[in-house]
């Protein structure tokens, strides 16, 4: 199930990314992202997971150049995304694309599907004939029928709309696609289809994904590496196998033990339970950001920000207590198969 990461060349490097948003009518700021560093290699999928408000979308938008970082650097190949020169800008155009959570939102309701898909091509200055051919090509690639090209977004189902959004994103042959919860607005069947599609595209084209999601089971299925975010920081990152086999940060453990599978015999772990909710990003707590919710926190956790600790196999954790959390570690279950009795023997035909 796990894909081996093709560690060829790094295409995206993010260093100490910080993003603040002003708070209307006050001098305070929202500390949306507080020093995120990450790297994406060609053809791999890096997942960003974490609680709502932890800054995943903001990181994605800074990477795609839609937001200007407060500080830190985002380097795509050799180009600084946050301050591209004119030449760099032309080079970069179309190389990074973004797919949003709400399929409907990214499509202009007044435009035919073909025009929506052609839009990034036009922006990247593709000549007219090649544009039309490319639109057809990607439409087939995402498995849509050609007739949808003449239709309008509202005539399509949510699943189809999301396929259009993906077709549009890959039209310019991007090297990196930021997928911001691309399946959370879809029902389970459509979701499964989209995930399959993303995998196929990656196999064929070698596109890298920054995959933002709440859905841990999908993350486990699709990504090579995982970064867990909490309150604007990456608290743990490593290969997917590592994170799901040996979750080490208390937040990751809490997150993984909250996953409920459609299996009544799954034992829900209550060993390390987080209390309460994510603190306000306006006034950041001192010390470890999780201290207020963490059952293991002690005085030091409340005073000092824990540095990254290498626990081996490229697995990094920001936690003073990473030794103690070992007793709570477990191999996370995130689905994958039906209860045996339900799935195997049964055949569809009556």
């Amino acid at each position, binding site marked *: 199930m796990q894909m081996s990461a093709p560690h060829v060349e790094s295409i995206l490097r993010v260093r100490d990314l910080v993003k603040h948003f002003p708070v209307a009518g006050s001098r305070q700021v929202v500390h949306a992202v507080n020093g995120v560093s990450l790297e994406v290699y060609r053809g791999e999928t890096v997942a960003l997971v974490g*609680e709502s408000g932890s800054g995943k979308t903001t990181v994605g938008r800074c990477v795609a150049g839609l937001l200007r970082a407060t500080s830190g650097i985002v380097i795509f190949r050799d180009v600084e995304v946050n301050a591209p020169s004119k030449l760099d800008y032309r080079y970069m155009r179309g190389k990074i694309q973004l797919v949003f959570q709400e399929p409907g939102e990214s499509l202009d309701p007044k435009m035919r599907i073909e025009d929506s898909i052609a839009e990034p091509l036009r922006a990247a200055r593709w000549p007219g004939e090649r544009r039309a051919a490319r639109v057809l090509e990607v439409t087939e690639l995402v498995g849509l029928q050609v007739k949808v090209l003449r239709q309008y977004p509202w005539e399509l189902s949510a699943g189809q709309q999301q396929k259009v959004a993906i077709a549009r994103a890959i039209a310019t042959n991007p090297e990196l696609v930021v997928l911001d919860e691309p399946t959370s607005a879809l029902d389970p069947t459509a979701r499964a289809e989209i995930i399959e599609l993303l995998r196929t595209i990656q196999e064929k084209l070698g596109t890298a994904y920054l995959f933002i999601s709440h859905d841990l089971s999908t993350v486990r299925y699709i990504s090579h590496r995982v970064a867990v975010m909490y309150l604007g920081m990456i608290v743990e990152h490593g290969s997917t196998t590592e994170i799901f086999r040996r979750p080490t940060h208390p937040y990751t453990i809490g997150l993984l033990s909250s996953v*409920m599978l459609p299996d009544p015999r799954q034992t829900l772990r209550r060993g390390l339970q987080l209390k309460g*909710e994510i603190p306000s990003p306006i006034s950041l707590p001192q010390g470890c950001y999780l201290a207020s919710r963490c059952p293991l926190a002690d005085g030091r956790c409340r005073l000092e920000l824990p540095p990254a600790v290498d626990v081996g196999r490229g697995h990094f954790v920001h936690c003073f207590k990473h030794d103690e959390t070992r007793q709570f570690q477990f191999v996370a279950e995130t689905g994958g198969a*039906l209860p045996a009795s339900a*799935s195997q023997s049964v055949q569809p035909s009556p």
Partner: protein
Amino acid sequence: MSDVRLRVENLHSYYFAHYGTVRALRGVDLTLEAGSVLGVVGESGSGKTTLARSIMGLLPPPGRIVDGRILFGGRDLRTLTPQEWQALRGRDIAMIVPNPRGELDPLLPVGEQLVAVIRAHTDKGHREARDLALGMLRAVQIPDPERRFRAYPHELSGGMAQRVVIAIALSCSPHIVISDDATSGLDVTVQAQILSLLDDLVRQQASSMIFITRDLGVVAHVSDRVAIMYAGEIVEMAKTTEFFDHPAHPYSMMLLSAFTHDHALRARWTKEGDSPDLVRLPQGCPYASRCVRAQPRCQAERVPAVEVAPGHFVRCLYPL
């Protein structure tokens, strides 16, 4: 265990919209035993909210119950007067709604809203009601309840507001709690906290619960029995373990397979097809057009519910 708190028989609820009659519930039968949790699962538009609102006697217009009975405490709720309804709601049957920040009065501190409900259903004075309200906020594990009592809805996080709504629902120790999609907007860690809290409180009060959700994963863990809805009908109902071990309806299989990343398995149970149009329903099984097991007979006749195992009902001519 087996004394029945609520029995719904042959319930039909339609929306008389300008574009036609939306037949949102078509002959729903269910029973809810004392102290048990019934999980109701179905895709968007299958009629879950309509079912909850019908039981609460508050179908928004143009919706109306057109047939059936809802038996509670020896009476058919459809015969209640508006006054009797008002007394019953919140006291005997309480509802937990999704997106609670939008459901609370934005201009009133949440504590006062809790007090208002308590006072509407008991003869407690303001002081007593306040004490009970604080107790409830504590019971739903809101930190610093005295301060939160005075907080306005917009000052609470989604999870906090959800706890307040649970406190309101449980404040009068209702016999039945109906939770409609109550945790869908929450983070998984918060969802896990709230579910275990809800579970504990409902069992403590010996209430019964109808737990409505789209998430089969949640249902597997909170409910004693599962009902699967499709196009306004309950297509399968069974004990939770029985359901997950031996799902009998092809639609249930499709739902379960969508949770897996087993491509072949999913393909085996999924077929492209139109989602049901509740205005122009086919004569036969509404799932037939998407069903991998469908036979000509399925299109032709209305499908009755059959008992494939003790207490396991399926509305399918060719159950698994």
